[in-house]
């Protein structure tokens, strides 16, 4: 069994108020390491056996069409065993 992971992030030029809020909260807790924070989404898609190139191509399509909004977001598909 493998997990296909799709990470979706807002494009760098799109304002991310949630990420900004997290960045502002960190130093209040004494964590001073963050220059900036961006928040995104992660999808974990379970498939039978090792994903085939055809399956991965389908996931790419789904990421483009449904999982992300290409107007404001980018996505990245990878396999985790």
């Amino acid at each position, binding site marked *: 069994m493998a997990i296909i992971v799709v990470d979706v992030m*807002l494009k760098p*030029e*799109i*304002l991310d*108020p*949630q990420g900004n*809020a997290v960045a502002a909260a960190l130093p209040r807790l004494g964590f001073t390491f963050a220059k900036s924070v961006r928040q995104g989404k992660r999808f974990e898609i379970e498939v039978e056996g090792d994903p085939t190139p055809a399956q991965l191509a389908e996931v790419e399509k789904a990421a483009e069409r*449904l*999982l992300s*909004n290409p*107007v*404001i977001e980018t996505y990245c598909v990878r396999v985790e065993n």
Partner: protein
Amino acid sequence: MRVGVITFPGTLDDRDAARAVNLSGAQAVSLWHAEADLKAVDAVILPGGFSYGDYLRCGAISRFAPVMELVIEAAGKGMPVLGICNGFQVLCESHLLPGALTRNSDLHFLCRDVEIEITNNETVWTTSFTQGEKITIPLKNGEGSFQCDDETLAQLEDQGRVIARYVGNNPNGSRNLIAGITNERGNVVGLMPHPEHAINELTGPSAQGLGFFTSILQAMVK
């Protein structure tokens, strides 16, 4: 004149939208998202709410509802479509309108009356207004910040496709204070604030929202 009002699971403002349509003198027709049938309507309104619980992204799942396939096709042929709030989000997800609506810049859900200026009174949804007319209607959403890339923004501005702008402070971080836009043809309009909640002074801040609904009636009668 029949105006369809679509109900998705989680839509809230379909009744108010239907009431506004009826008050303007047209006939409101209820359309269910799962039915691939536009019931011979002359125009369609996508009302506000939280269709599909706003899961994934606002409007992302509604965009694939059976009724939306017909709306997208009809809009391409020139049928007037108005998306209010969540409806605006659905229209952007459907790529009937450019850009996207993202989380309000201050992260708060806003529910307040706002003043907007009508900056294009030539679309089928805005002819009842005068150019530059200022109206006060409610704004109520958590993800109302209009975002798009620089090229799209320049296109919207150059082609006069910003139909309404917030007056004064920017309530949600929308680029260029954009409250509403239209497509190139001018038949599809998306608007963040809610004209259907401002159709009489007893229940709304004004009756100025009615203009959107009388506009479409005038446009169709012509």
